[in-house]
């Protein structure tokens, strides 16, 4: 695929916002689900994982976009993977240096950011074709969208599963924690519930639109 100059996208607010809502990597595209479900049993883990992914996403998108004219087409995937793996190694050691507890809680999932399809997808579908500025802004949007999704799951699971948020007690001691929320099945259920909520809102909006259209045609 050759890229024509006029395909360069203008940097607008939409470049950033797209990753938050319209093309949210988790809720809309269902990409990169492994860390989303695996490390969201507490809010702290979710924040750490989100920020780590955000950093790798932005850094690798920048580098891929800078080098996009130099990377031969045949070996582009391998090149992207090496770029991503480099930044992941950096993050891996930084987190290990900051907090060993956090590092142990996240387990192998820090290193597994390499195989997160959101990042490779951005490099292949966006950063390899667009200007550096557009790529950076798009990557930030995607990364923030990913972090928000992690937070959505992390807070709900920690609140229901342990009655706390970020370790602070929210419910009174009479609250019996839903242990299943911390366990693996809880991850599936909470993500399912979020998807259900978004789908419900979307369908209600469409119905309202239809009803409004029907009213105008009847009135005329």
């Amino acid at each position: 695929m050759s890229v024509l100059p006029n395909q360069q996208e203008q940097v607008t607010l939409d470049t950033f916002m797209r990753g938050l809502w319209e093309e949210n990597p988790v809720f809309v595209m269902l990409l990169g689900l492994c860390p989303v479900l695996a490390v969201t049993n507490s809010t702290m883990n979710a924040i750490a994982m989100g920020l780590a992914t955000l950093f790798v996403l932005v850094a690798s998108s920048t580098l891929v976009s800078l080098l996009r004219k130099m990377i031969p087409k045949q070996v582009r995937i391998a090149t992207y993977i090496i770029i991503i793996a480099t930044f992941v190694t950096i993050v891996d050691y930084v987190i290990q240096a900051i907090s060993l507890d956090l590092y142990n809680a996240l387990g192998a999932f820090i290193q597994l950011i390499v195989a997160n399809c959101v990042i490779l997808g951005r490099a292949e579908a966006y950063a390899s074709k667009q200007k550096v500025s557009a790529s950076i802004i798009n990557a930030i949007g995607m990364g923030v969208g990913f972090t928000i999704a992690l937070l959505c799951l992390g807070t709900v699971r920690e609140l229901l599963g342990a009655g706390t948020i970020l370790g602070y007690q929210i419910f009174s001691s009479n609250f019996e924690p839903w242990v299943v929320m911390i366990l693996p099945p809880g991850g599936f259920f909470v993500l399912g519930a979020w998807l259900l909520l978004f789908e419900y809102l979307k369908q209600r909006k469409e119905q309202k639109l239809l009803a409004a259209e029907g009213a105008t045609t009847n009135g005329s």
Partner: protein
Amino acid sequence: MKEYALILVSTVLVNNFVLVKFLGLCPFMGVSKKLETAVGMGMATTFVLTLASICSYLANEYLLAPLGLEYLRTITFILVIAVLVQFTEMVMHKTSPVLYQLLGIFLPLITTNCAVLGVALLNVQEQHNFIESGLYGFGAAAGFSLVLVLFAAMRERVTVSDVPAPFQGSAIAMITAGLMSIAFMGFSGLVSS
């Protein structure tokens, strides 16, 4: 002999890679819409995952550890996997066109399957030896295939049944997976370790 059997049972059922460890969810959600493709993906993954587990063990033991290059582990492993996938594709293309037609389209997807990299990293973390690494890889892949095929069969049934409108699509798939995960938690008393 007993410990090898334990590794197999524990990776296939008790610590299932998809439902308990949350590895390899992208293909689990992505290619489980039809039973046939799920079987193909399962076979391709089993082949690559077992090989990748052994190769990454060898790379770690005889290349990285003697040279003191442990910090390059992530890069090395992902490269080993990428090369292995490419190599498998080429060999399959030359030797068995039938198999290639069946599994060919799934092979590139395996590179970004985090279960493959996950197995390689967990092998190092849990200090498995050569045979254990191979078995661990094979067990993980067998567990992945088992769950993938079961899930695909269920999704085929779900699509023809009457699902409430907001549940349709990925929401019902997630909840089905959650129920499967609960069912697999029932195996947790099987191996005590």
